[in-house]
């Protein structure tokens, strides 16, 4: 048994300078980078509502939330760098499409109710995925996840509170919430990834204790959590097959449109091109700032010498 296997077997964390299988390192870099990219791209659907938030209170909250997403992306890029990945290279791979981000962010945020639904459902699904990752086997990733999970709880609660406020409003506001839920429910279920039977990497990731639960387990957990929340809100989840199964002790729910999932992952979602174009523009238009900061730092070092 190698040191690596022994550490995993004892349920301890792998740390950056430990010897690890190449495939573990590559899987970790891919997963952490994809996660970081998701946080960074995830700033866009809500970010576009900052200037149009209906009150100063909502604007301040939304600004803080989007700033958190940026922070989460940076914690994760830092974790990826401990494995030898280079941040500039990761950004280049995001922009070129060589690395993916969560398919959920390729859907548009059409109304202000979407801001609430993203907080409630999208961040809620993210929390379901992320809480077990606080115990993932790679130390820097687990530590980043602990920090992120603490902050995500604010994200979900602000979204739910926003929706409760709208549901107490006019019929038009209630319709707006229902419409947003109708559009985001199924893509939220897709956030847990393909069904277990079609998730080839799951077994190895579980053996390495990167993952602690399968995609379908987490999806079920999310459905079970969301149904009573939807009832309390007074909205309907858009699934005619959704019903309590006494025998299983879980809610049964309909089949996700996996064809749509694959299409969006492959680049053909409503906003794929726009998300990457915005990220590319931010990167290219910010180049002079990065260069100026480097030039300034070099000049100061030169003076001190």
């Amino acid at each position, binding site marked *: 048994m190698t040191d690596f296997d022994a550490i995993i077997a004892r349920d301890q964390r792998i740390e950056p*300078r430990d010897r690890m299988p190449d495939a573990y390192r590559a899987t970790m870099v891919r997963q952490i980078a994809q996660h970081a990219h998701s946080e960074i791209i995830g700033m866009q659907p809500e970010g576009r509502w900052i200037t149009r938030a209906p009150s100063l209170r909502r604007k301040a909250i939304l600004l*803080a939330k989007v700033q958190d997403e940026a922070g989460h992306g940076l914690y994760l890029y*830092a974790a990826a*760098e401990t494995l030898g990945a280079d*941040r500039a290279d990761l950004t280049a791979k995001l922009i070129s499409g060589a690395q993916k981000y969560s398919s959920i962010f390729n859907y548009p945020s059409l109304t202000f109710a979407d801001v609430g639904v993203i907080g409630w459902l999208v961040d809620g699904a993210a929390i379901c995925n992320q809480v077990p990752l606080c115990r993932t086997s790679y130390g820097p990733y687990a530590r980043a996840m602990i920090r992120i999970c603490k902050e995500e709880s604010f994200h979900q609660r602000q979204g739910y509170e926003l929706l409760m406020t709208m549901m107490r409003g006019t019929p038009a506001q209630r319709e707006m919430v229902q419409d947003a839920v109708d559009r985001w429910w199924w893509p939220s279920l897709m956030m847990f990834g393909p069904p277990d039977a079609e998730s080839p990497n799951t077994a190895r990731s579980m053996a390495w204790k990167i993952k602690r639960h399968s995609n379908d387990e987490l999806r079920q957990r999310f459905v079970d959590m969301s149904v009573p929340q939807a009832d309390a809100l007074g909205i309907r989840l858009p699934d005619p097959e959704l019903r309590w199964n006494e025998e299983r002790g879980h809610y049964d729910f309909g089949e996700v449109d996996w064809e749509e999932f694959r299409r969006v992952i492959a680049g053909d979602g409503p906003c794929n091109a726009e998300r990457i174009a915005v990220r590319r523009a931010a990167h290219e238009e910010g180049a002079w700032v*990065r260069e100026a*900061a*480097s030039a300034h*730092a070099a000049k100061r070092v030169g003076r001190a010498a």
Partner: protein
Amino acid sequence: MSWPLWEVFIRARRGLNHVHAGSLRAADEAMALHNARDLYTRRAEGVSIWVVRSEHITASSPEERDPFFAPNADKIYRHPTFYEIPDDVPHI
């Protein structure tokens, strides 16, 4: 061209040590401190921040872990429980 990597250490409250929080990229010390504040203390997590260039840290090697720490393994007399004192002796 990319900015150097910095390690960030945060003192959560007066009376505690600075503890490693993570790392970040910044062009110079001033920017590293500002970025560390924005990245790692958005919710009053700290009262003091240290930043240090990652390349200036020297670390022990995990490969040598066992031999490196071996000298402390067989010195159980460094621990108070090594010494047997009768139960009826107070305050010791």
